[in-house]
């Protein structure tokens, strides 16, 4: 999808794109200090993109992942890290949902939404990547 961008620029470009989208969201939201927040998040995204670009120059696993030049072991490392990230996200969402229900808060539903999306993602992953009998 991003093969027209040099490998080292792919993740920084994604960071800049995400930062621009978030800054634009502050613009759409409006309010008295929207430009301040938009600038703040825009600059933060630029700094993060620069950091990832510099990290991509490192001769290390993190550098290879940041520079989109991972070999097979580093891709496995990346998958394991994402799996851990997903698990921690689900656990955090479950704790958040449990606490929100217990204190009768109105903000319980975002936690349920995160749990639903991550759970559905897991089921989808099994459905897509499983080996069916007869293949």
């Amino acid at each position, binding site marked *: 999808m991003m093969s027209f961008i040099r490998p080292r620029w792919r993740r920084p470009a994604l960071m800049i794109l995400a930062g621009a989208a978030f800054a634009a969201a502050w613009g759409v939201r409006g309010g008295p200090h929207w430009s301040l927040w938009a600038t703040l998040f825009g600059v933060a995204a630029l700094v993060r993109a620069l950091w990832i670009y510099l990290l991509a120059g490192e*001769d*290390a*696993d993190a550098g*290879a992942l940041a520079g989109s030049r991972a*070999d*097979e*072991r580093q891709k496995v490392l990346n998958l394991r890290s994402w799996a851990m990230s997903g698990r921690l996200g689900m656990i955090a969402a479950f704790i958040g949902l449990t606490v929100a229900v217990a204190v009768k808060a109105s903000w319980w539903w975002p936690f349920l939404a995160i749990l639903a999306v991550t759970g559905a993602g897991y089921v989808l992953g099994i459905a897509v990547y499983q080996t069916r009998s007869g293949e």
Partner: protein
Amino acid sequence: MRNRVRERRTQRGLSQAELAAALGVSRQTVISIESGRYLPSLPLAFAIARFFDLPVDKMFDPDDEEADT
């Protein structure tokens, strides 16, 4: 699983970086394979064996369990 990557590499006078470049993997992956922390995929195992002109079962000894992956 024990392997003879380090032994063969040093016999040839290659650095880990040179072997990594020849195999198209990172230096860290060569280090992980040599130390037995990472078991390479079949294609990479065959590429390593071919590089050192050894059958894959001579390069990697399945009877000696060392690796955790």
